[in-house]
């Protein structure tokens, strides 16, 4: 398939329309019938709509960030099994969120920046800061002779994740019953568990949208990197520079997502593969499609979660539902696809 401006914008326009449709659907469909409320109870109507909007936007942002981050890691590491959490970012961010939740007094869990009029959650901020620290540490450990070696990176990420995993378990073990429950539920990955506030949603949106824009711009380079660094360089790509910036952006996207909504699995791994099977491996298309696809996937997943009558604040963890519904679909598509599922690197 050739990559012309016309085809590019046609496909992306279709994806955007589908995105809008799903977002609209997410606002309208739910346990409460908002049309009835609109005239009789305007206050309740506004409140429900606002809360659904908050949740829909969170799902859209996190889904887009995770899927795009997954595509980038897969291309950078030339590994179809790579996913946003491969470099240990989720472990670091999770530990930050959990430690803040456990250690801070309830009155400190949110704070306001008066100059901006933003209310942020301390746990989310702690998660994001820990994500940054983790990324920095992983890069420093993995670096050798001023170069980032992909295999050392993966190994370091796995080790660091194991370390943070143990620290999280220790924290959970020492916490009281109620907190332990909360931690375990949060670790399952549910958008409702850590309810994003408008303030942090706005900050996260800024970081995520900037990161996504960088990836759309870098997508052509991901194609070249898929053929290995020597070939990519011979085709005019500054490999080391590109790798560094893309790793940082991908890690930031993953870190923000975990801080905002907990470690939601599956999206970052599966959505890129689903789209590759349908549209091919060309990253110039795959990156923007993953942004829309990840958003759509998580919005639908979150809607399904809310429709399940389940007596739990926030409902079932969305990661569970996306995996339960996504895996059979994935298998079906993989069986029918002509596209080879990635060669050994």
């Amino acid at each position, binding site marked *: *398939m*050739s*990559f*012309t*401006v016309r085809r*590019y914008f046609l496909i992306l326009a279709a994806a955007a329309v589908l995105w809008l449709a799903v977002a609209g659907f997410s606002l309208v469909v739910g346990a409460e019938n908002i049309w009835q409320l609109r005239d009789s109870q305007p206050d309740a109507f506004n409140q429900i709509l606002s809360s659904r909007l908050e949740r829909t936007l969170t799902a859209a942002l996190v889904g887009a960030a995770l899927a795009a981050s997954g595509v980038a890691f*897969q*291309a950078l590491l*030339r*590994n*179809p099994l790579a996913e946003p959490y491969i470099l240990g970012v989720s472990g670091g961010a999770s530990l930050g969120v959990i430690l803040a939740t456990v250690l801070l007094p309830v009155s400190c869990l949110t704070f306001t920046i008066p100059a901006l009029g933003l209310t942020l959650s301390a746990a989310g901020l702690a998660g994001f800061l820990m994500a940054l620290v983790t990324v920095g540490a992983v890069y420093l450990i993995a670096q050798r002779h001023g170069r980032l070696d992909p295999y050392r990176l993966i190994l370091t990420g796995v080790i660091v994740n194991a370390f943070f995993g143990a620290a999280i378990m220790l924290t959970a073990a020492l916490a009281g019953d109620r907190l332990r429950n909360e931690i375990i539920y949060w670790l399952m990955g549910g958008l409702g568990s850590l309810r994003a506030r408008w303030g942090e949603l706005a900050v996260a949106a800024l970081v995520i949208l900037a990161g996504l824009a960088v990836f759309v*711009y870098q*997508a*052509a380079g991901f*194609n*070249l990197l*898929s*053929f*290995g660094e*020597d*070939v990519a*360089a*011979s*085709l*005019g*790509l*500054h490999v080391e520079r590109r790798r560094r910036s893309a790793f940082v952006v991908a890690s930031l996207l993953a870190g923000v997502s975990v801080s905002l909504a907990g470690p939601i699995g599956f999206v970052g791994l599966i959505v890129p593969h689903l789209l*590759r099977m349908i549209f*091919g*491996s*060309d990253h*110039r298309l795959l990156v923007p499609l993953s942004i829309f696809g990840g958003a759509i996937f998580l919005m639908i997943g979150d809607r399904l979660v809310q429709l399940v009558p389940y007596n739990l604040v926030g409902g079932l963890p969305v990661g569970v539902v996306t995996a339960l519904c996504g895996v059979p679909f994935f298998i079906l598509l993989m069986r029918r696809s*002509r*596209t*080879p*599922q*990635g*060669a*050994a*690197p």
Partner: protein
Amino acid sequence: MTAPAAPNALEVRDLGFTYGQGRFALSGVNFSVAPGEFVGLLGPNGSGKSTLVKLAMRLLPPAAGEIFIDGRRAGDYRLRDYARRVAYLPQENRPAFAFTVLETVLMGRSPHQGAMGFESAADLARARAALDRVDAAAFADLFLDELSGGERQRVMLARALAQEARLLILDEPASFLDLRHQYELYRLLRDLARAERRSCLCVGHDLNVAAAFCDRLVLLCAGRVVAAGPPAEVLTAAKVREVYEIDADVTLRPDGRPVVLPRIEQL
């Protein structure tokens, strides 16, 4: 240092490189590839062939000496400009994901495109012409994985042609090819050199296929050039003995090109 009047496509002067520990991978290497010339680079394992390719592709910085491309120091080119002049073909190049043949060849256009890499009709025409040139137009919509090794190398060559580089640097491109595909690839390279005046530097292990098609051979041993010149002058029994430490009978084909037949009974 002044460049020569009629610049060579590739000129290597007093090139030296070390991986450290005082062991020189290359030292005092001199040779050149003229425009339209097909040069074979031969030598035993560890003789420095791959290091030389890496230096010529600017993947490593030289420790001593210089490399000139079209009369200008290699390091003075911007990376994209370099990619417009020099194309690289590795031993085997399989991408991490499934790309079609046409997508792969179009990537050769990337040094000529903007950052987003949108393809113009001209890019597409060049890619298709390149596929035609290597007789692979029929594969355009297949995935690389669906091709044989020989077909895949032709596609990679098409990518290099679409890149419009005048100099092709090939690192053992025929290692995984059977006899016939080896000869076909070398013949294609020779034809490209003759018909389109593209210059080729091709690293290889097979002395006979290189002798049959290359204009000149450069024989490396332990990081130094042992012999350079027309195949019949380079591949003598004495040189083969010196470099590969094996006795061989060297006969000449009717066209004067040498054939090396090792005496295996002595092994």
